[in-house]
């Protein structure tokens, strides 16, 4: 018996040895508990989060090809569908010749220069996660995409093709309330607008040309797809249904070192393809938006940044007349948004204090994110955080979430 097992083992090791290359597996286990502060929030649950999550990461690379998988399993006590899982990432990476890189599969995509302000980054965001204290990585929702990067003397040309439109994940009313055009709603107003049909013409295309000029990184961007938020409305059987209107974005950015810090400037034109003249009250008007930011270390272990965004809506007069006639909120023609992030590291970088503020003087609303985390050991991290929304008007970007103020506690064990 013993001999047989030895033979089997030997045979296994012979066959499996060189062929069975190493797959690395790691990940984390995380619990997140959060509760709303505002009792008047019309959501179904008082718990903004009550979940245990296990993320498994698997990685393998062979000759010139790489595989990476990131799989989340969640028990979610604050939701009705209790067990959930998501393939956050699952892609292959390979190189064709010397100039082409490919990344194919489910992936997280980011570009552009803004800090939590996205202009040319028209990739899916998950605000449901962002507003309740999940890790930063959950702000980005994965897209099933094919990404090709071409490197030449001119710079790097990146092309991302997402065959099936991937929208932003917005509050649904279940645990985070939102403004439905009339009032702030929660329970019973489950919000799930239909996405564009699965046709090739409805796929998303994002492009970037990136080139270094001296120590500055400059980029040109193009996007063809849809607004990631359902900003349009169509009438179906006499009822209004939110939809994702067609969108093109053209933009540019520059980022680099200056005055002991980093400066970034980005601009983009949001071309609303279903409202070219800005006269359709059911569709969003085009807009021109730009931002400038600066970040620097202001003391050892203390970093701060400032951003200023200006957003100008086209055909504002028409827009204003239509909105006023409908008795809706009228935004300013030029909207300003200021943000600031302050990060303080303490006790040998074991404690991280982070503050982020959005404030719009024109919309008169704001959003404050604060958190403190402590790395108790290399594996265990404890975090406490708060999300506060303020707004004078319930129709503004942050004002609509004003009842969603919450606090959370998060424990993470990495392995």
């Amino acid at each position, binding site marked *: 018996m013993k001999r047989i097992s030895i033979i089997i083992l030997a045979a296994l090791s012979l066959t499996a040895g060189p062929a069975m290359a190493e797959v690395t597996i790691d990940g984390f286990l995380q619990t997140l508990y959060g509760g709303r502060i505002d009792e008047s929030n019309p959501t179904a649950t008082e718990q903004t989060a009550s979940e245990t999550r296990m993320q498994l990461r698997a990685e393998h690379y062979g000759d010139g090809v790489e595989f990476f998988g990131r799989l989340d399993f969640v028990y979610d006590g604050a939701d009705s569908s209790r067990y959930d899982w998501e393939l956050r990432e699952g892609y292959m*990476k390979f190189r064709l010749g010397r100039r082409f890189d490919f990344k194919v599969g489910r992936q997280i995509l980011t570009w552009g220069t803004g800090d939590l302000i996205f202009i040319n980054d028209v990739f899916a965001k998950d605000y449901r996660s962002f507003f309740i204290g999940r890790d*930063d990585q959950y702000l980005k929702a994965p897209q099933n995409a094919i990404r090709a*990067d071409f490197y030449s003397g001119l710079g790097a040309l990146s092309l991302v093709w997402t065959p099936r439109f991937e929208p932003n994940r917005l509050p649904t009313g279940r645990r985070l309330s939102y403004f439905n055009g009339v009032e702030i709603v929660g329970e019973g107003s489950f919000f799930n607008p239909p996405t564009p049909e699965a046709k090739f013409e409805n796929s998303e295309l994002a492009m970037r040309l990136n080139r270094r000029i001296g120590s500055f990184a400059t980029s040109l961007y193009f996007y063809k797809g849809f607004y990631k938020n359902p900003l349009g409305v169509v009438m179906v059987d006499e009822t209004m249904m939110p939809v994702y209107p067609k969108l093109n974005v053209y933009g540019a950015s520059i980022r680099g070192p200056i005055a002991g810090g980093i400066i970034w400037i980005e601009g983009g034109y949001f071309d609303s393809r279903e409202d070219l003249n800005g006269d359709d009250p059911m569709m969003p008007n085009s807009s021109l938006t730009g931002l400038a930011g600066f970040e620097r270390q202001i003391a050892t272990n203390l970093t701060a940044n400032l951003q200023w965004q200006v957003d100008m809506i086209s055909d504002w007069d028409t827009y204003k007349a239509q909105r006023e006639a409908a008795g809706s909120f009228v935004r300013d023609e030029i909207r300003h948004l200021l943000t600031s992030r302050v990060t303080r590291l303490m006790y*040998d970088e074991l404690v991280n204090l982070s503050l982020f503020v959005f404030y719009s003087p024109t919309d008169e609303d704001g959003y404050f994110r604060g958190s403190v985390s402590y790395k108790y050991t290399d594996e265990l991290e404890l975090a406490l955080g708060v999300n506060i929304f303020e707004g004078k008007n319930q129709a503004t970007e942050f004002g609509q979430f004003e009842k969603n103020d919450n606090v959370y506690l998060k424990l993470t064990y990495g392995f």
Partner: protein
Amino acid sequence: MRNLTLITMMLALLLATGAVFGQNANEIMKKSHMAYYYAGDDGIAEVTMRITDKRGKERIKEFTMLRMDESDGGSQKYYTYFRKPSDVSRLTFMVHKSPDGNDQRWIYIPSIDLVKPISADDKNSSFVGSHFSYEDVSGRHWTEDKHTMLSDSTIDGRGVFVIESVPIEDDKSLARKVSYIDKENYLPLLEEYYNKKGKLERLFKAGKIEEIDGFTTMTTRSMENLKKKGKTIIEFSSIRYNVGLKSDFFTERYLKNPPRQFIK
């Protein structure tokens, strides 16, 4: 006449030795810098950092480090691929270091696919939470200090030059550094960092020194912070020199796609 010749000769000799002595400290620090930070044209190593705080709690960081010299004693490029702890695994970090002090740093966070340049103004910041600063890891250029030879001494039976270095431009925390440089291989065996109050604040000690690919290499070293009462030990393993790293590897393309022929 003969006397005059003799006096001239002696004077010349005196001047010459004087010049030699004056240059000596500077020359030694340059040689030391070259031996310590510029061995070979490039290099790769697996690095383990053991960080102990004042309560004796230990934290471990593991990463792969790639270095390439653009020119000897000149610009350098560094690439770091983190392995441990788990929350930073696969994160990459890149530095373009220039002797004029205008360094550029980037970080890539794979979980959000984010490339971010980092403002690199403060060189005294801790390197990944350790007791080594950024400057300790990639080197403070010898021309930034005024060096003076203090004496000769021995450490563990090895002859050393004892040299004092004072920052030419006022430095926030460092008033002076005393280095004990090995007379044979020019590696720093001991460094004492004094703060503005004249107190010894940090203490660097060389550990194991080995011959690798023909280069005398310090494979372990430690930095103790006497004020914070903490200590970091760095161990280098799987060291290779002159592996043929290209400038291309130190760009955004490779920051996002680690060169797998070197980073396994």
